[in-house]
C-alpha cells in the first residue's frame, strides 16, 4: 500500500499527536515522540478504547487519557502489569513531511503479544 503525505512534521506538536481519520472512519493517531521520531497507532487504547492521541507523550510512550495505561509507541503494547496491544501503522518522514500508509495495519505485534501472554 502506498504512503501518502498527511501533514508536515511541525503540524504535530513536540511530544504530542494528531488524529487522521481514514475513509472508513477508523482514527489513526500519529505521534511525535522523543527526538522527533514519528509513530502511528490505532487511536484506541486496548483497555477501554480511550483515544491515545489525547494522552501525554513521553519518550516512546503515551499515557492513555482515560485510565493512564502506558502504551509503547514502537510496538503498541501496554506496559506491564497491564496486558494488551494496539495495532501500529507504517509511517515515515520525508523532507519534513509525514507520510502515512493508512491501510498498513500491522497485526504481527498482536500475534506476538498473544504468544507471550499464554
Amino acid at each position, binding site marked *: 500500500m502506498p504512503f501518502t503525505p498527511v501533514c508536515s512534521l511541525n503540524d504535530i506538536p513536540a511530544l504530542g499527536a494528531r488524529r487522521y481519520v481514514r475513509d472508513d472512519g477508523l482514527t489513526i493517531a500519529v505521534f511525535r515522540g522523543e527526538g522527533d521520531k514519528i509513530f502511528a497507532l490505532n487511536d484506541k487504547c486496548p483497555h477501554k478504547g480511550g483515544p491515545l492521541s489525547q494522552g501525554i507523550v513521553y519518550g516512546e510512550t503515551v499515557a492513555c*487519557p482515560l485510565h*493512564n495505561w502506558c502504551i509503547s509507541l514502537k510496538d503498541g503494547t501496554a506496559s506491564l502489569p497491564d496486558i494488551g496491544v494496539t495495532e501500529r501503522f507504517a509511517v515515515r518522514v520525508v523532507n519534513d513531511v509525514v507520510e502515512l500508509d493508512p491501510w498498513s495495519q500491522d497485526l504481527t505485534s498482536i500475534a506476538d503479544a498473544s504468544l507471550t501472554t499464554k
Partner: protein
Amino acid sequence: MEMQKMKLVVIGNGMAGIRAVEELLKIAPDLYDITVFGAEPHPNYNRILLSPVLAGEQALQDIILNDFDWYEQNKICLHTSKKVIKIDRKAREVIADDGTRQAYDRLLMATGSNPFILPIDGATLNGVLTYRDIYDTEQMIEASAKYKQAVVIGGGLLGLEAANGLRLRGMDVTVIHIMPWLMERQLDQTASAMLQKSLAQKGLQFRLEAHTQSLQGNAAGEVVAVQLKDGELIPAQLVVMAVGIRPNTVLAESCGLHCNRGLVVNDTMQTYDPRIYAVGECVSHRGVAYGLVAPLFEQAKVAANHLALFGIGRYTGSLTSTKLKVTGVDLFSAGNFAGGEDYEEIVLADPGAGVYKKLVLKDDKLVGAVMYGDTVDGAWYYQLLRDETNIAAMRERLMWGESNLGDVGHQGQNKAAVMLDSAEVCGCNGVCKGAIVKAIKDKGLFTLDEVRKHTKASSSCGSCTGLVEQILMFTAGGDYSEAPKKKAMCGCTDHTHQEVRDAIRKEHLLTIPQVQQFMHWRTPNGCASCRPAINYYLLSTWPHEAIDDPQSRFINERSHANIQKDGTYSVIPRMWGGHTNSGELRRIADVVDKYHIPTVKVTGGQRLDLLGIKKEDLPAVWKELDMPSGHAYAKALRTVKTCVGSEWCRFGTQDSTKMGQELERALWRMQAPHKVKLAVSGCPRNCAESGIKDVGIIGVESGWELYVGGNGGIKTEVAQFFCKVKTHQEVLEYSGAFLQIYREEGWYLERTVHYINRVGLDYVKAKVVEDAANREALWARLQFTLDGEPDPWHEPERAGVDLKQFIPIAVVA
C-alpha cells in the same frame, strides 16, 4: 505416547475437598485424573452462606462456588448424588451406592460432619430437621411458609442463625439452650446477654438452662410440641436441632482407618494409610476437629501440596475466630476470651450504646478477645493474637483499636490505609492485605467481584466485605493519577516534590528541560506524572515568566474540556455564583440543538454541564455560548457555590450571592495544585454547604466566618475554622491569601486539606491571619498572577491553546 496420569479420587464435594482440588490444580494441573464423589445433587456451594439464604438475603444460585462448567473445564469427573459406601484399600478402589467403581492412586477424604441428633423420643417425627445443607434449608423455607411456630434446640452459632432466618420468614421462634448463656463457646456472659437482648428485640424467645425431654407428635407422625424437663410444653410444627456436629467417619472406620473423634491425620494431612489423605470437618488433627472454614482451607492447602508431590507444607493447627452472620448484630470472638486466674482483662462496657469489648492478656500478649457492637478491629486483634505480638508499649491504647495507634497522619485516614501488608483481611481464605493490593494493582481490578475472583477475599462468609471495599477504594483510588504520597516524585527521579519546588525557586528555573537537567532526571523527558507537576510548579513560582507547556498537561487542560469515556467532551460554562439569565439560557439551548448535544445536566456546583460534544465542535460551542470558561476541567478554581442570601431569604443575614460573585470574579482563572471549590452561605444554616469546601464562608450577623480545608471527595473532610472578618474586602483578601500560600507551597495533586495537614493549620494561620504584611503580600502576588490571564475559550491564541488539535489531519491532495 502420553504418560498414564495418576488417579485421584475425592470423596466429598464440599468446601474443604474442592478447595484442596483447586489448590492442587494451581500448582500441579496435569498430575492427576481427578474424580469427585458428592452425596448431594449440587455442585460445590458455600455452606457458610446457607444462613443468608434462609434469611432470604441471598438466593441459592448466589452461593454456588464452582458450577458444573468448572468441573468440565478442569476435566474433573463429578459424580453427584452418589454416596461412596466402600473403600477397598487393597484393590485401591472406591464403590458408590449405585455400584459405580473407581480406582485410585491417591484418595482424599472430605466427608465432613453430621449434625448430632438428640437421642430423645420423637426425634424421627416429620418436621424435625437438622441444619446442614441445601436440602435442610429448603425444608425449613418450605415449613416456614406452612407453619407458624418453630423451636430451635441449641443456642450456638448455627442455632441462632437458623432461628434468626426462620424469624425473618415470619415464624414465632423459641430457642432452647442447655447452657446458662447463648454461644458460650464463643462469648462471655456479658457479651452473650447483649446478644440475647438484641435478638429478643428481633422477636426471638429464649429458654436457657432448659433440657429437652421429648418431642410430641400427632397421629400423622408430625411434630406438634416440645416437652421440657421442667414440664413446659412449647407448641411447634417445626423443630430444628442444632446441638453440634460430629465428624463423619463411618466410611473411614468401615475400611479400618484409625479414627478417634475424627479421622486421625498427621501434619501433612495424611491418614494411617499413606495413600489416603483427609481434610475438613471429618478430620481429627492433634486431637482437634475444626468446624470453621478457615482451618479447613489451611488444611486443604497443605494436603494439595503433598498430593502435588512437593512435600513442603505442614499444618500445625489453627487459632480460630468467629463472627455471627445475623444482619444487624456485630459480634466477634477469638482465642481464650474467658480469661481466669493468671490472666488480665481489659474491659469496655457501654450496654446503653450496645458496645462491649473484652481483651484478655497474658505476659504482655493478647490471648483472647470478645467484641459486641463494634467489631471493626476484630481482624487486627486476631492478628496480634496469632503473631503473639508484645503489646506492652501500646497497652493503654489497645482498647481503642488500630486506628488510634501512633501518628497516622491526617484525620479520617481509613483503616485499610493503616493496615500492614501482612495483616489478614479475609480469615476464611487466609488472604492478607498485601495480596489484595497486589492483585488490584497488577490486574487493574476495579470492582469487589473482580477482587473476589482473583484473590478469593470476601468470597466465603462475607464479613470482611467492607474492609475489602476500603482497600479497593484506597488502592484503586478515584482519580486517574495517584496522589503524591511517595517520597520520590516519580520513577524518573529520586527528588521529592518539595525539593523540586525549592530548586525551581532558588535556581530561578523556567522550563521543564531546565529542571530535569539541573536535577539529573533519569529519563529524557520525564513521564506523565512528573511533567504536569513541574509545569505547575514553574507557572505558580514564576508567573508571567515561565511559559506554559500544553503537552505536559493532561488532555482536559490541553483541550479545555472534560474528556468522557467515549472520547467526547463535556463543556461547563461559568455562571457567576450560580446565577444565570434568559439570554445565557437561550444561547445554551441553541447550542445544544445546533450541535446535537445529547445530555444537559445540572452540576453540584450550580452550573450546567453539556455532555457528549465532539472535539471538532469545541471551539464553535465556546464561541456561540459566549460565556466564560468554567474551568471545570482544570486543577484550578472551579465554582463558588452560593445560597440565595439576604436579598431574598427571610433568614439571610448577609448577601452571600454578591459575596460569592465577587470572590469568583476575583479568583477565576486561578490554577492550583488541585481543583479548588468555594462556597458562601448567608447564614449559619449553611445552605451552600460551606463546610465541605476548600474555602467555605458563612455569613453571621456581625460579619463572615472563614473555614478552610474541606472537601466532599472520596474521603469527606470537614473544613476547619480559620478566622472571622467583617467586610467583603477582608473576605477577598483572607481567602485569596490562603489560596495563594496553598498555590505556592502545595504539592501537585495535594488538596487543601492535605496541604494543611502536612504543614499544620497553626502555621497557615500564622502566615495568613496573624501576619498582616505577609497576608497583603500573598494577596498581591495572587492578583499579579491573575492580572491579564486570558480566558482560553475566547482568547485561545493568547492562552496558547493549540487550535490544530481540534481538526484531524488529512491526506494532502
